[in-house]
């Protein structure tokens, strides 16, 4: 879906933010993790065509991002920004969600249909007529997700989706990611919430100092304790508990850990 070749980037007069990144994105859902300032958001903006590579190339399908504009890429790749206040401007939830689809030249009927679908997935279907700024921060974040979902792109990038979400909100986002996967979309995220990343994403890439220093499935990545420490990334809670208990292997979720501990218990009883 996406091919990144020898990508290097720096802002004018600034130091290098990304250096020599080579990555291929297949259909596996992918989480990019790493400290603030590791270059994650810049990377997402480059994929989205909002910034142009300094050196190197990015291909979305067969299109080189260099040869196209952000507005033209809008129908192919969706990016949900971190702060909903940076994009909400309509006075009705439905209008806000229809804005994107209308921009990519869908007719009004289709745009409305897609918008309502997206609002259903995000659990906001009963709020079509509400003023977006009367929503809570977590609902606003879901609204922004809906406004990108409605554009029905093949690729979705979510920037810190779980910030300000309580348990219910996280469950909703989990379901959104599931349904996107089922519809054969590539889902990517930039995230600090390691528990959520470990549970919901197949592939994890660790950024540190502008380089992709680790790349693999979640159990591989969270098993590399030394490299994680160097990138100052904390492993998911389940993995930390397993380590404290001296269990062999990497545990990503509560369920995996419980299963293993049960077996341990049974073995002890035998």
């Amino acid at each position, binding site marked *: 879906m996406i091919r990144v070749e020898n990508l290097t980037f720096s802002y004018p007069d600034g130091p290098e933010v990304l250096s020599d990144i080579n990555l291929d994105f297949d259909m596996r859902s992918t989480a990019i993790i790493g400290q603030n300032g590791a270059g994650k958001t810049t990377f997402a903006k480059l994929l989205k065509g909002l910034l142009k590579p300094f050196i190197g190339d990015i291909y979305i399908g067969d299109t080189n991002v260099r040869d196209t504009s952000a507005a033209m890429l809008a129908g192919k790749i969706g990016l949900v920004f971190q702060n909903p206040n940076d994009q909400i401007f*309509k006075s009705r939830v439905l209008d806000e969600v229809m804005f994107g689809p209308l921009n990519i030249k869908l007719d009004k009927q289709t745009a409305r249909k897609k918008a309502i679908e997206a609002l259903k997935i995000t659990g906001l279907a009963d709020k079509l007529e509400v*003023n977006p700024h009367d929503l809570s921060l977590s609902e606003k974040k879901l609204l922004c997700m809906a406004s990108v979902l409605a554009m029905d792109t093949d690729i979705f990038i979510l920037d810190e989706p779980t910030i300000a979400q309580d348990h219910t909100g996280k469950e909703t986002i989990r379901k959104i990611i599931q349904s996107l996967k089922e519809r054969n979309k590539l889902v990517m995220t930039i995230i600090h919430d390691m528990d959520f990343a470990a549970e919901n994403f197949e592939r994890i890439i660790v950024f540190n100092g502008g380089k992709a220093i680790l790349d693999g499935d979640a159990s591989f990545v969270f098993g590399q304790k030394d490299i994680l420490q160097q990138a100052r990334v904390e492993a998911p809670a389940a993995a930390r508990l397993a380590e404290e208990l001296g269990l062999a292997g990497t545990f990503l979720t509560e369920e995996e850990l419980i299963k293993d501990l049960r077996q341990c218990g049974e073995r002890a009883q035998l």
Partner: protein
Amino acid sequence: MQKQSMWSLKFSTAALVLIPTAVGINYIGKLFAGLLKLPLWLDSIGTVLASILAGPIIGALAGAVNNVIYGLTVDPISFVYGITSVAIGLAVGILCYKGWLSSWSKAALAGLIVGLVATIVSTPINIGFWGGQTGNVWGDALYAIVLAKTDSVWLASFLDEIVVDVPDKLLVVLISFAIYRGLPGSVSQMYNNSNKFESLD
């Protein structure tokens, strides 16, 4: 709830904090207009919004502060035109209080009035300061023509200002009205300084 007098000098903190925000909006409006290469200034949206939300005094203060800041940061001449900004703030606040900002057609009319007020206040300043010009290419071209034809500095200067100000203020008031109508209740009621909380005991 009783409607408070529009001339009250007791401001809530929210209303005061609205002033720097309004100045910021003015600034950003001008910046975006420049970025999009629009042929107008659109640099008083914040002042107009402040007036609509918090009354003529806050609007006038926002106008004054706006020009003081411009004077301190870009162009000292702006200090002098602070009077125009104050007038815009007052005019919008009064019109709004009298119920003029209730429909698109009324808002458009209000925009024209605000443009006229701005022109009437600016013209003497233009004459005193520049001999009547505005620095706007189209306006000044008209000024030159009228001056050559009629010998009236006042008429020329007035027309110079009006062709620039009226379309700009009309659009500014309409944009502000559009934004205001889209505000949720929780934001728009924040700035009125309604007196007391009720008791549930």
